[in-house]
């Protein structure tokens, strides 16, 4: 019955040398002293650590193997967790998906993952413009899918990705992957969190003081854009742009004249936003492009057709007409410095606004001209563009494969498997 035990060797060695290794590991030169400064507030004392090491040292036979002539590899030093620089324009933040949340950080220069900013399902992220923090607007139940709901803005340190604080808020919308349900304003001092319960409102938060300020009822509107010195604007179901002055005790809401049809040719609630110029670029299901100048009284320019800007027939709402249409889940990305809008386009009929894009159209908005059409090897569901001078386009598909393209040449630079299938965010000016 014991015929196989003679070979227990490997396992025995493990026991013996674990003890030896850990001991050496602990007593050696100055490099090892780092151990005491391990990242975070570890609750283990030195004694605790020594005891812990004993877990790997169950069988203390005391035997030490004979020394060998050539130098073996040295044991690794104890290393603190990697820390990060302030977010760079080459970085992208990819929501990994519905059942596997969290925002993976990738550097588009190297194609490497840099870290993960924790987040719950259906959460939203924003980047501190000072580069010191990441903010997650999220909803967590005390027992997974059940228990007490807790809505909060969770603040992570940008260097260590450690939790800094939580700011409780009285609610937020539950929807996946939208860019404009959680926005920052006033150089990152104020946050606005969209809520639907199912009445529509906005929670205003003072990030500097770390507290909720007030709730603003916002009937019939959603998808916010910060308006400097005023508050925010939002798209409304009557086809108007609402502008909310948030400073006073009672928020003032004014509405523009309706300029689009919210049910017949809706504006995608993902759009281009230029904070410095206070300009937005809207795209509709048919492909109409509106630019608007934000302010106390926003002004909306006459729209033009992206298809016409590419020399093909303009999109229509009529059934049975097959044409190029904009679409997908995150279907357009705006490069602020150049004023170019990158749009995922596909061939289809109207009401195919969630279909994956087979081409990227590079639209010079001011010139009203599609200057480039980039065919994609695989259809894409999301698009983003880095705000670098030499911008990179990033697209993902539902399987989570991410492709990085040179925005100037359309050439593919690299790709990352299992990068994530949710919203892609970039560092924006």
């Amino acid at each position, binding site marked *: 019955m014991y015929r196989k035990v003679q070979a227990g060797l490997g396992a025995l060695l493990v026991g013996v040398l674990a003890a030896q290794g850990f001991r050496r590991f602990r007593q050696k030169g100055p490099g090892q002293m780092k151990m005491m400064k391990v990242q975070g507030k570890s609750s283990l004392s030195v004694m605790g650590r020594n005891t812990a090491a004993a877990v790997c040292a169950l069988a203390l036979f005391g035997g030490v193997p004979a020394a060998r002539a050539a130098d073996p590899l040295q044991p690794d030093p104890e290393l603190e967790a990697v820390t990060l620089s302030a977010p760079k324009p080459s970085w992208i933040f990819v929501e990994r998906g519905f059942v596997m949340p969290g925002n993976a950080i990738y550097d588009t220069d190297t194609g490497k993952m840099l870290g993960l900013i924790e987040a719950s399902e259906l959460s939203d992220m924003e980047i501190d413009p000072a580069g010191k923090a990441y903010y997650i607007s999220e909803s967590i139940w005390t027992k997974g899918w*059940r228990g007490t709901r807790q809505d909060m803005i969770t603040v992570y340190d940008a260097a260590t990705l450690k939790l800094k604080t939580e700011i*409780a808020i009285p609610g937020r919308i539950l929807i996946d992957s939208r860019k404009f349900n959680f926005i920052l304003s006033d150089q990152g001092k104020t946050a606005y969190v969209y809520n639907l319960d199912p*009445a529509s409102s906005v929670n205003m938060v003072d990030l500097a003081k770390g507290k909720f300020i007030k709730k603003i009822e916002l009937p*019939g509107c*959603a998808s916010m854009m910060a308006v400097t010195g005023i508050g925010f604007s939002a798209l409304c179901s009557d086809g108007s742009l609402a502008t909310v002055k948030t400073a006073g005790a009672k928020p003032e809401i004014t509405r523009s004249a309706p300029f689009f049809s919210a049910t*017949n040719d809706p504006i995608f609630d993902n759009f281009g936003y230029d904070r410095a110029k206070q300009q937005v670029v809207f795209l509709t299901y048919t492909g109409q492009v509106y630019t608007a100048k934000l302010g106390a009284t926003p002004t909306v320019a006459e729209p033009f057709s992206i298809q016409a800007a590419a020399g093909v027939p303009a999109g229509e709402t009529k059934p049975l007409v097959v044409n190029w249409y904009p679409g997908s889940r995150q279907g357009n990305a705006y490069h602020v410095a150049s004023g170019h809008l990158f749009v995922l386009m596909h061939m289809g009929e109207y009401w195919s606004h969630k279909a994956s894009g087979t081409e990227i159209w590079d639209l010079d908005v001011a010139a009203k001209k599609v200057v480039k059409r980039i065919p994609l090897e695989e259809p894409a569901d999301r698009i983003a563009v880095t705000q670098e001078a030499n911008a990179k386009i990033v697209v993902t598909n539902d399987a989570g494969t991410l492709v990085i393209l040179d925005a100037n040449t359309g050439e593919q630079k690299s790709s990352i498997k299992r990068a994530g299938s949710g919203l892609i965010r970039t560092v924006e000016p």
Partner: protein
Amino acid sequence: MKTFNPDAMGEKLLRRFAGGTSRRGILSRLGLALVAAPAFPLLPVSRASAAKPDRSPEAKTAFARSAQTTDDTKCTYWRYCAIDGSLCACCGGAVNRCPPGAEHSPVSWVGTCINPGDGRAYLIAYRDCCGKSYCNKCDCDGTDRETQLYVPQLNNDVIWCFGTTSMEYHCSTAVLVGTA
């Protein structure tokens, strides 16, 4: 979790918020908020034309032209023209019924779908079944007349679990409400 000081503070605040907004309170506030919103009134559509929608094949969407009435575990089933998510019919429920342990949301987003059997258009309420984790079976995404978040009742990405014990999304049903 002693190192997480914010936790204790946050929990207290959250409990206050949670205590202050009952579910009934939330829903009855709708009368003041959403319904008061000028939703469509500015669209210059004549009421007469609304009574005569064009349901000829030439007026149908791609979904409507290929829809079927026999298998409600397929995305092509006619009622699913604007559904998004897992079909409850594949999760132990039915086209209009929640799987065991799930709770039907009393409110929902809606769609107008054409039944290929009688050529009529029907109003479909896509009532989510809530209080269980994502079913992840038969994921469909119909987009006929589906619009954006500023018209939430016509948007199929919103988690429509309001007034349920838990807001966790499990799957979606397609309840026939009436002719459209």
